[in-house]
């Protein structure tokens, strides 16, 4: 076996303490981002869905603005977005280094993505069921809460799972630029220090997190799906 491959299996390079700190950072960062993205994405998706066939000019305008922002921020490459947002981040977070500094960019990148998935999930809801709610004299808010939300829940959860996995990917990227976590570990302690084993271990841990996330998402989706 040549030295190149062997360099991936130098277990002495792995500092378990650092690994643990980085893992916790990645999980915490992902967790909080997912929560904010879920709320914001849901709200934006709901606006997109509710204003779809609106005739009133201000609703059309609102839809236009939301749709435009969603499309723009979904299209900017994440690395570019982080750099672009540095002044903004510094303003609202007070720092441009560490896990906290990554949150604005993560949210701004992932929320529009989830908003589109939310809109799709709502579009999948049977129009007949919504009509039935209307025939029962349901208010708009009641229809959303008692019909739209439960009927689209499986798609909302599986969409959030996909989004969460993207966010894990983004946190790693943010880590390279100084946000900490497993991405940072893989780059700084791994690549920069010439310790390939550290990079490999960080990769494996990220994969495990992704798999767990996918499993949980599938499990919840299955539980609420009675179609």
């Amino acid at each position, binding site marked *: 076996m040549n030295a190149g491959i062997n360099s991936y299996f130098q277990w002495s390079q792995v500092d378990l303490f650092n690994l643990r700190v980085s893992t916790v950072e990645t999980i915490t960062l992902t967790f909080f981002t997912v929560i904010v993205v879920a709320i914001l994405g849901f709200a934006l998706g709901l606006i997109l869905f509710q204003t779809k066939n609106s005739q009133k000019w201000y609703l059309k305008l609102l839809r236009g603005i939301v749709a435009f922002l969603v499309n723009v921020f979904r299209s900017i490459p994440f690395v570019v977005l982080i750099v672009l947002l540095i002044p903004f981040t510094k303003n609202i977070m007070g720092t441009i280094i560490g896990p906290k500094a990554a949150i604005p960019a993560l949210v701004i990148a992932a929320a529009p993505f989830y908003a589109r998935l939310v809109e799709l999930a709502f579009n999948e809801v049977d129009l007949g069921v919504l009509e039935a709610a209307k025939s029962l004299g349901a*208010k708009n808010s009641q229809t959303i809460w008692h019909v739209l939300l439960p*009927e689209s829940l499986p798609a909302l959860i599986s969409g959030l799972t996909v989004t969460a996995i993207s966010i894990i990917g983004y946190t790693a990227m943010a880590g390279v630029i100084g946000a900490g976590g497993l991405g940072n570990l893989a780059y700084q302690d791994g690549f920069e220090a010439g310790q390939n084993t550290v990079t490999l271990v960080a990769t494996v841990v990220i994969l495990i997190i992704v798999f767990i996330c996918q499993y949980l998402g599938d499990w919840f989706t299955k539980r609420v799906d009675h179609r």
Partner: protein
Amino acid sequence: MISIKNVTKTFANNSQSFTVLNNISLDIPEGIIYGVIGYSGAGKSTLIRLFNGLEKPSSGDVLIDDNSIVNVSNDQLREQQKQIGMVFQQFNLLSSKTVLENVTLPLKLNGESKTKRNQKALEMLEIVGLSDQVDKYPSQLSGGQKQRVAIARALVRDPKILLCDEATSALDPEATSSILDLLIKINQEFKITIIMVTHEMEAIRRICQQIAVLDSGEIVETGSVSQIFENPQSEITKSLITKSQVNNDFDSPELLQEIKDNGGADSLILKLSFPNKSADKPVITELIREYTDIEVSVLGGQLQPTIEGVLGHLIIQIKAPQKEHNEVIKSITDKSVQVEVL
């Protein structure tokens, strides 16, 4: 009384507009089962949605007990909608909710307590015969059972009116039959006015007392079920009736022609329609006793139960000297049986 007054409904898209309902007026007495029949595209679905405000007329008015549901605020309309239940062709149940949760939904919208909701919903599920299915999800039920859940949901707030939009059209014949029986039971026990639209003449015949025939957005004919079935006026009604008779006597005009040709000059083919409640009259026996020199053979016949009684018709071939033909026809007509020479 439920009334539609001079309603026109027009849908417009960018380039053109379609008139779906054209100056329609209807009066539906309280407590009956009223059927609106027409081919698809006639405007039935739009028409039935006028009664609960799901569609607003472009002009005209819709009155329920003299209260307009057109020129009212959204809040007032919602209050009215609570008096009107609706069931749909595709059932439109929430797939994410159990049978019980589906039925309690309307009460939840009213803000009723959970105990009250469940009690009332279980009562309704008992009536539709699904007491043993309360914790199942709609996907675990058959089509007929789903429609029963939908009916329970529509009735759980004790409405005055039940609207049925092609309620049996997605069901197999057996389920259709049991749902129609259920609708009759609901109408009779709870005195709920039922308005149903459908393209199935069979369903209308089984349960309706009065009928309107809708064609291209216009009412072409109204009347009691026996009037319409025994004496249809418009071509569209005749065609709907003919199509509904599964074992239709002469589906093929060629067959009829063949029998006519073989019969010769003495042959006379008649369609006898028996008016309400007289389908069991011994008309043929009387005829043969009266005219001993004629031969009668039965070519086909049908009995159709309706809510008002049995409708029957018979197709017979008579062999008699040609000069007696008119006399024979008159003799049958005198027995208050309608005669049509085929």
